[in-house]
């Protein structure tokens, strides 16, 4: 009996030693563990949201995440007809647009950008956005310059949203060798808001919110070059514009909102809702009263989901803390 007790005590000491080893490892190690969204819960938000992590699309509803596509290069979902989604599937050397059901199954492949052979023969498509009337799909595409195959600039194109229809129109003319025009946001009036890049004589890069009334027109800047604004998001009533503005910083940005006159296209004085941090991809809630965006919750950490109300910093909410969301994919926030 005595030997049995001694044996048990020795075993307990051994287990204790192993426990100390693992505890020290946990305390000293990197605790910024990234979870898949469907492994965590989060405060519920009104409506339904779609986010992207590691090439998979997740639906966020009633405080829980559901993975709707495999981790297979899926990115940049956006609201489609009915409860469907448009999304990009990015692969080595090319990216294509797809129409997906709300459960993530493929309804139609909309572009076929892969060309066998030389890598540079393939194309990219990014940032699909459906026009408010549902008739037109806007997206980014890289038309090639036949005189300079080093020049690859994204331009915004538009095609009929019906997968069976053909034809496309180039809407914007990007500045050469800047990377091009991105983030199309179609308006009810038929105009298009987007981000345009330019490089000045001092080799400085500028991003501006730009608006065009029709395909191929010159358009006009809504923001000044020195403010460095991009990633526009329009409120459901089209009276407010949210944007990310770097204001000369390369390590942080502000989330600004301004009123927008949808007739004259005059932008009001912007107000900063969230300032001085790396943040990306704002999107309005279906009721237009709050904005979701992506930002790290710790310096250098991965991107998490946040929301902010119209009252500014006091209303900031950190919705997730240990995910690694794709910050180049704006959340899709729809009602229902």
């Amino acid at each position, binding site marked *: 009996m005595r030997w049995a007790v001694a044996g048990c005590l020795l075993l307990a000491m051994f287990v204790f*030693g192993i426990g100390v080893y693992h505890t020290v490892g946990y305390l000293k190690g990197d605790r910024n563990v990234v979870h898949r969204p469907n492994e965590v819960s989060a405060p519920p938000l009104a409506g339904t949201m779609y986010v992207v992590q590691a090439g998979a699309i997740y639906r966020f509803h009633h405080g829980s995440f559901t993975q709707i596509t495999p981790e297979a290069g899926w990115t940049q979902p956006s609201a489609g007809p009915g409860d469907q989604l448009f999304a990009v599937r990015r692969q080595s050397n090319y990216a294509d647009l797809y129409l997906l059901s709300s459960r993530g199954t493929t309804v139609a492949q909309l572009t076929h950008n892969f060309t066998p052979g030389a890598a540079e023969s393939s194309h990219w498509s990014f940032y699909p956005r459906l026009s408010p009337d549902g008739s037109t799909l806007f997206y980014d595409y890289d038309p090639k310059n036949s005189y300079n195959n080093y020049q690859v600039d994204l331009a915004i194109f538009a095609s009929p949203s019906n997968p069976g229809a053909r034809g496309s129109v180039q809407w914007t003319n990007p500045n050469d060798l800047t990377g091009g025009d991105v983030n199309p946001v179609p308006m009810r009036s038929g105009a298009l808001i987007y981000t345009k890049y330019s490089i000045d004589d001092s080799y400085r890069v500028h991003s501006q919110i730009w608006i065009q009334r029709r395909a191929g027109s010159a358009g006009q800047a809504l923001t000044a070059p020195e403010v460095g604004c991009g990633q526009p998001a329009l409120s459901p009533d089209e009276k407010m514009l949210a944007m990310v503005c770097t204001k000369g910083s390369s390590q942080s940005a502000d989330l600004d909102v301004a009123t927008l006159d949808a007739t004259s296209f005059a932008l009001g004085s912007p107000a900063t809702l969230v300032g001085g941090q790396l943040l990306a991809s704002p999107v309005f809630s279906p009721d237009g009263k709050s904005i979701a965006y992506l930002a790290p919750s710790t310096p250098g950490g991965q991107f998490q989901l946040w929301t902010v109300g119209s009252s500014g910093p006091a209303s900031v909410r950190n919705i997730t803390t240990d995910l690694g969301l794709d910050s180049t994919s704006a959340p899709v926030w729809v009602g229902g």
Partner: protein
Amino acid sequence: MPRIWIVALGFVIAGLGGLGAYFLPVFQAAVNSTSANDGLPNLNPISAPTEPFTILLLGSDDDSKFVPDRLNTQSMILVRVDPGAKQATMLSIPRDLWVQIPNQGWGKISWAYQERGAEGAVAAVQSNFGVHVDDYVWIGLNGLVKLIDKLGGVNVQVTNPVLDDFYPSDLNSGGNPYDYYRVAVLPGATHMDGVHALQYVRSRHGDSRGDFARSERQQQLLLAIKSAASRVNVADLPTLASAFNGEIKTSVGLDKMRALMSIANDFSGPNVHRIVLVPPYTSEGWAAGQSVVFPDWSQIRPLVQKTFA
């Protein structure tokens, strides 16, 4: 001794055993560290540097296209840190800058590393720019990727879309190092692993600023690495250093590295000045049948004297 004390002592010894088992590899790594002159790190409190100092950061393409001991430097960044004033300056030196290289004659400054390694690069920078370089850090392609991955990635504000249809596919040792693939780095704040961060700072074909754009992005990445490194525990430095197996070479010892890390958080945002020698400091032209960048020393040297003296 009462039995209860014997049992308690047993648990204490088991706990110490667990602690020892965890920390033993750290100390072994410190002893075997690639930094020759350090040995065991001093885990006592360190004194932070107070005097200004200058470090030359060097980056090379070290894939199989190149003979290992005949590498050029694709990136040269001179960093001046003034701990007292809490000011830092980064000056990117164009790789094609046409200069007099000590003991070699005229050539691109990127060639200085070929003949005499870091010593040659330091000598070329010192003689042409009129500055004293205290230390250097050299890193290769895989070293940079591994460093960023060890840090858990970096957060970068991508200034504009970076698109390159001819990005070299030379990172892995297998395959054709002259092969290429397409890169599209989308704009905005983003978290990057090592491979994607390397794409961001190495791509140059789709930007009208060419190599100057790369220089800007390299400076940006340096700040992002500094930010990510602030999460590193100084006790983990020996383990981190030993993981690179020659992919990072430096004259900075582990104790000095710890001292530098202790002041790293003093330098961010507006007190880090970034200089890229774009025109009118330089102009593009031809020399010895090659495309080069000519320096205008009458403009560069006063700038350097002002910020690095």
